[in-house]
């Protein structure tokens, strides 16, 4: 789920700063390499907007560790969501499938925040339209709890206990001019 930064990065309580995010991503990259036995069959699929950015950063780190490039793409899940009718029609984001496709690949979905799990459910549906991966895993920068579906992450940057009325804002350099994760009181 994407959290748009409306009040600037100063608003709310910063729980991860730029260095924290960088260390978390480096650790995630190492964990992915370890658990996938060298990432030889790996394809990273980020969920736009910020999940896709994180996937690209993870791919860079994994490539550095392994010394060879990693397949990375983006997967728009908008049309597969179960809450489409609850809001005005949402803008569609780009889906890019790496040249090798996703069939028989080990796909790791990447998103910024794991919350209800509904985005990931939609992502699994979207993914199956593009092929049949050998296995699908999930990496997130922040897991804030409050799951509404039987979904869990395989790689977590930071477990962040939150109340349901709070919101988690992930700011990334590419979109918001700064790397920071903040918790805001809900309205």
């Amino acid at each position, binding site marked *: 789920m994407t959290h748009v930064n409306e009040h600037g990065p100063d608003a709310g309580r910063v729980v991860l700063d730029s260095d924290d995010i960088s260390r978390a991503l480096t650790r995630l990259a190492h964990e992915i390499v370890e658990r996938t036995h060298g990432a030889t069959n790996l394809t990273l699929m980020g969920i736009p907007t910020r999940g896709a950015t994180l996937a690209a950063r993870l791919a860079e780190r994994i490539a550095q560790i392994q010394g060879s490039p990693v397949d990375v793409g983006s997967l*728009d899940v*908008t*049309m*597969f969501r179960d809450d*489409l*009718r*609850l*809001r*005005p*029609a*949402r*803008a*569609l*984001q*780009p*889906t890019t*499938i790496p040249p090798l496709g996703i069939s028989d690949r080990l796909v790791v979905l990447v998103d910024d925040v794991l919350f209800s799990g509904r985005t990931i459910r939609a992502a699994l*549906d979207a993914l199956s*339209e*593009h092929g049949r991966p050998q296995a699908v895993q999930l990496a997130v920068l922040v897991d804030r709890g409050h799951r509404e579906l039987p979904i869990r992450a395989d790689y977590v940057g930071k477990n962040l206990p939150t109340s349901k009325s709070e919101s988690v804002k992930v700011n990334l350099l590419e979109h918001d001019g700064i790397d920071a994760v903040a918790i805001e009181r809900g309205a």
Partner: protein
Amino acid sequence: MKHLLSTADLTRDQAVNVLDTAKQLAAATTQGLGKLPPLRGRTVVNLFYEDSTRTRISFEAAAKRLSADVINFSAKGSSVSKGESLKDTALTLEAMGADAVVIRHPSSGAPHRLAHAGWISGAVVNAGDGTHEHPTQALLDAYTMRQNLRDGEGDLEGVKVTIVGDVLHSRVARSNVILLQTLGAEVTLVAPPTLLPIGVDTWGCEVSYNLDECLEEADAVMMLRVQRERMNASFFPTTHEYSNRYGLNVARMNRMPAGGIVMHPGPMNRGMEISADVADSKRSVIVEQVANGVSVRMAVLYLMLGGTEMGE
């Protein structure tokens, strides 16, 4: 966007949003995705009071690719031929639960009446009304220009478009002039004086009677069909003379700038407004227009039916 009745309903941001959405949907089609789920359980009625192949098929394909249920209703062979009014047909469709009605009608303003008379609660898409408008055609034309002339991004600021032919009867020309200007393009209309509508000077575009003067700078030349079914008065002396003065042949096409494209909303009269060589040339994007039509209509249906209604 509750209804799409005229391209004048669209701001530049809204129009660009339709084009951006169409681009993503076109990519999904290229990536081999078959049916997409967002309109599952929604019903789209194609209500066609006028003959049409490509527009009806295009809307039908668009709705089906988004998983909507499609009901095709053509005036021939329906209760309309028994004298049923638009109102009673509309009430019937409402009772059947139509979420959107795509209407083509020979009378200008029929879609507006359908949308605002309180007969139906669903969305109305104008698929061509009389000599008034054909907004989805203009959107697919703008999309085709953006793909070929602007790398598929943003608006059409500074693009020079020449529209040639029967502007008087053309809903395609009217919708295009409005939309292209909204998107920042510069439009020139070329036609014999008898085929220009009264008040064309208020449309905000250039008008010329001479095609040869309007080719050197045209990034896109759009040829309009000579509508024989509407040519009941003497608009021009002979078809031969029309073709000589306003038809696009290879000699004229070669005077366009490099990268310029030739468009036609179809169906073409080969040898009349456009020569066969031009229609089949590398500059011609006429087949591409048809393919883009499905993506653009998917975008319109998705934006109208894919969420809650605005303001609800």
